[in-house]
């Protein structure tokens, strides 16, 4: 399994939960904390993210940055991946 992770810009997240549904790994969940805008933001709830970018693709706030384990063989442009 490829290893990945994500970072959520907590102050941008509006807790819409669309990323949660889009994650094939069920890695995401809402935090119990709320941000200044009053939203419960999203965070990883399992350590099984594969870096598939699905969550980031559907995020309306562009709040998610996705990281993935470097493959040593193939080189790719950071942003164009998977889209």
């Amino acid at each position, binding site marked *: 399994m490829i290893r990945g992770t994500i970072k959520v810009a907590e102050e941008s997240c*509006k807790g819409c939960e669309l990323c949660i549904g889009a994650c094939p790994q069920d890695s995401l969940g809402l935090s119990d904390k709320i941000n*200044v*805008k*009053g939203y419960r933001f999203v965070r990883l709830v399992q350590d099984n993210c594969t870096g598939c970018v699905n969550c980031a693709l559907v995020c309306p706030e562009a709040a998610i940055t996705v990281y993935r384990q470097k493959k040593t063989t193939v080189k790719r442009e950071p942003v164009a991946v998977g889209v």
Partner: protein
Amino acid sequence: MKSHEIIIAGFGGQGVLSMGQIIAYAAMIEKKEASWMPSYGPEMRGGTANCIVIVSESKISSPIVSRFDSAIVLNQPSMEKCDSKVKPGGILVYEKSAILQPPKRDDIEVLAVPALQEAVRLNKKQIANMILLGAFLERRPIVKPETVIEALTSVLPERHHHLIPLNKQGLLLGIEFGYSKHTVVA
């Protein structure tokens, strides 16, 4: 009381607008003049909502004012906006659980009400705003609690009238809370 100017602010969905309407209705029932002015700013739903209520013995001039006798605040962003707009000697009532940074002003009365906590305790989340309203009215008796109950009949659509007793309960709880804290002047 010649004229009393109130701002009520929070997130949409917290019952901010209807709290204001209830006060205005009650004032009307008590033959006072009242105006209710919602904010109709650019923010989409999900953003903040607020309304200005003015209750007066005589004709109300501007329904929009920038300084208030009272503020009821239900979330942090609104706290930042409202805090400074309360006139010295005025009151600021707020929902305790929503506020991270309580106001630091010492020229106004500040009352933190754990309304949500109380409501959750009773398993009736929706009465939180009535608790706040009760607490506020206990500190500033602009309209009588009886009239508020009467006003509810007008504000609530028919199909929600069965909720009136519940709201009444919330109101009384708030009054009690307001009374018990009447010495706590920040």
